[in-house]
């Protein structure tokens, strides 16, 4: 018994030793890992701002910007690590980083409609202080921007929240050779009541199905993919017909009561369905690029779309550098206008913003200012690696530069389009916009699929009401901001002194 007890005791002691050893090693591992974490955190706090991180999206500006970024490093000594993401991935990545307050990027590319959400949640900083400090810096020169561009995409609640690096307007591209062959009058270069949406639809229907130079033509092409792309094309038509998202926004005292089922929006939906009937059937699934580059394939009579496509369709595929079959056979025209309704051109596009979590804000501001400067924008326009590309200017100095007009003859037209635009009316950048856009896109796609327009828009209105009510936007008890052109101009003036 004594021997057994001794044996049991020593076995127990041995087991206890093993358990303690395992526990100790686990504890030391945890301590070591924590120390590593702490020292990493310490390193992060003392961030090395000689390298900064930039988030971009795969639009044409990115292709040019990355070619000229070495000039920024040569000029300032600051290295830039660029990460290029798709539209969906960019939005998801930015939102995730902002929500978790994890420092990810020092400079972010932000879409026009996200600024309300990003700024009101404190995710991006106001650039007012930086702009004021750089008021005399010719690289900034805020007054060189078209006020409508800054108003539409870069200002929120009296703050400059970004600098445009690639603003867009919307206009019409048409095949003048096809129009001539079919005896159709060319669309005008300036908006007027005679060039109405009804006329646009009728023209598309006239071209649809005709054979020109051995090729069967479609009247037009549309963007039908839900949830996001379809909204970007549809809302231009809707705004042009006088449809608004809410009762009162962005001017005056904000009232987010939705007006999705207005007569103007129903008329817009009818027109969009008519355009789809004159478009390739597969365009119900087309995103921005698929629709735009379909025009370059040569079987589309005309389309209205974002201004980058004015040059992108010169390539046979997106940024391919190989000429398309329509080079020299298409022209730019004005957007149709609803008779009796003031024209609203959609302004969208991209700007560089400053995340509040960046540890290198001074250097980040240097990059933002440099990338949006007149000189850099011109350099970007002269990059020919992918064929003629990038004319997405927001500055008068670039839009009126004779050297650039020689390469992009439509720049004077583009300037007029931008000058008459108001992006905030077309796609309101209120904080709930991304959620509303998701619903809107789905409903619009249903309409293209044959759903009853009146009922679907009424359902949209109902869902919007529930969403806005559930998120405390209806009734809106927060602080409104009278977001007028006049106030934006006053802001630009104050930041330029």
């Amino acid at each position: 018994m004594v021997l057994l007890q001794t044996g049991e005791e020593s076995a127990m002691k041995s087991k206890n030793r093993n358990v303690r050893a395992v526990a100790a090693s686990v504890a030391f591992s945890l301590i070591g890992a924590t120390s590593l974490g702490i020292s990493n955190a310490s390193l992060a706090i003392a961030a090395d701002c000689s390298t900064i991180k930039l988030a971009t999206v795969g639009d044409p500006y990115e292709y040019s910007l990355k070619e000229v970024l070495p000039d920024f490093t040569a000029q300032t000594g600051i290295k830039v690590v660029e990460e290029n993401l798709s539209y969906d991935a960019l939005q998801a990545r930015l939102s995730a980083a902002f929500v978790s307050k994890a420092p990810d990027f020092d400079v972010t590319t932000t879409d026009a409609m996200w600024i309300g959400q990003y700024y009101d949640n404190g995710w991006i900083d106001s650039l007012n202080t930086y702009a004021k400090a750089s008021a005399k810096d010719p690289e900034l020169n805020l007054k060189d921007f078209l006020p409508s561009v800054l108003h539409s995409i870069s200002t929120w609640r009296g703050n400059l929240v970004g600098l445009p690096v690639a603003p867009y307007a919307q206009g019409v591209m048409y095949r003048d050779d096809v129009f001539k062959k079919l005896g159709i009058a060319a669309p005008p270069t300036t908006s007027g009541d005679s060039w109405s949406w009804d006329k646009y639809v009728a023209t598309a229907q006239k071209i649809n199905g005709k054979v020109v130079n051995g090729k069967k033509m479609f009247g037009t092409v549309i963007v039908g993919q839900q949830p996001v792309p379809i909204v970007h094309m549809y809302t231009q038509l809707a705004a042009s017909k006088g449809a608004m998202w809410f009762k009162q926004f962005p001017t005056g005292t904000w009232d987010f009561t939705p007006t999705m089922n207005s007569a103007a929006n129903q008329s817009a939906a009818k027109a969009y369905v008519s355009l789809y009937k004159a478009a390739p059937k597969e365009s119900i699934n087309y995103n921005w690029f698929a629709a735009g580059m379909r025009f370059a394939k040569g079987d589309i009579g005309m389309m209205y779309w974002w201004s980058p496509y004015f040059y992108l369709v010169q390539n046979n595929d997106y940024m391919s550098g190989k000429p398309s079959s329509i080079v020299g056979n298409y022209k730019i025209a004005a957007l149709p206008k609803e008779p009796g309704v003031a024209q609203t051109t959609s302004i969208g596009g991209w700007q560089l913003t400053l995340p509040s979590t960046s540890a290198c804000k001074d250097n980040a501001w240097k990059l933002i200012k440099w990338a949006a400067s007149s000189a850099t924008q011109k350099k970007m326009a002269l990059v020919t690696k992918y064929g003629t590309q990038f004319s997405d200017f927001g500055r008068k100095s670039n839009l009126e530069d004779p050297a650039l007009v020689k390469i992009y003859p439509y720049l004077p037209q583009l300037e007029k389009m931008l000058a008459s635009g108001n992006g905030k009316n077309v796609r309101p950048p209120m904080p709930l916009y991304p959620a509303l856009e998701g619903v809107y896109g789905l409903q619009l796609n249903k309409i293209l699929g044959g759903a009853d327009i009146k009922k679907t828009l009424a359902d949209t209105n109902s869902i919007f009401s529930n969403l806005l009510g559930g998120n405390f936007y209806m009734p809106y008890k927060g602080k409104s901001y009278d977001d007028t052109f006049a106030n934006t101009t006053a802001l630009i003036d104050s930041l330029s002194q």
Partner: protein
Amino acid sequence: MITKKRTPWLFMAPSMLLLLGLVVYPLYFAWKNAFYYWNLTTSPKPLQFIGLENFKNVFKLTPFKASFVNTIALSFSGIFIEFFIGFTIALILSRDYLKTRLFRAIIILPTTIAPVVVGFLFLYLYFPNGGAFDWLLKIIKFPVPAEGLLGSSKTALPSIVFADIWQWTPFFAIVLYAAIISVPIDLLEASEVDGASFFQQIRNIYIPVIKPVASVIVMLQFMRLFNTFDLVYVLTKGGPQTSTRTLSYSLYVEGLNNYNIGLASAFTIVMITIVNVIIGIYVFIFLRKREW
């Protein structure tokens, strides 16, 4: 004696910690926040208690009905077809027509590919006016919709089911093959002597023997199909309209697109309830007589 009591717990501790961290806590998180208004884009913390509002919004604010119908259609059709084809392949493998280990290794390859990669692969195969499937179907005069297979609400969901069948049927085949080869050879020989046909052997010998294994993998694969997200996200994003929208995709939209954590939590609870009811009925019918 004390050590003997502690040691098992010590060995079980890592698994229990994982279970707590990956299952219990998330469930508790979902249950708790389903009753709160919490949108990450407006507040880093839950704002207020709103009772059952989130659960009502699951049915009011999201295309729940379409998502539910699509999920059930996808799950049941996928399971039946994958089981049937997988069983057929397993039988063929067991007959030694294609005996080589190489063939068995090749057949399992689709299962090793990430679903997202499979999604992109089929996205290009289904591409209208250029994709290989589009071209092949037109050659055999199959009426391909003008919008493309993924652009038509009639063919989009079957196209997703097909991609899933391509990827996961081999899994059924391999598992059922392993079950089939466990059938005693003398039983098969005896049945042959008694004049049983191949189909009689399948019905009276193979199926009863493989039933326990088949029951379990059908259940597991059903749960996987019920949660289908990757293929939908890559191929159609729930469109056209809501013809391919699944419950998982709707959950993703609410939680990771709209950051509505409260609503997403309620949606999670609803989904868990549905799948538990279905699996509960399945277990009652097929597995209750098993000894575990």
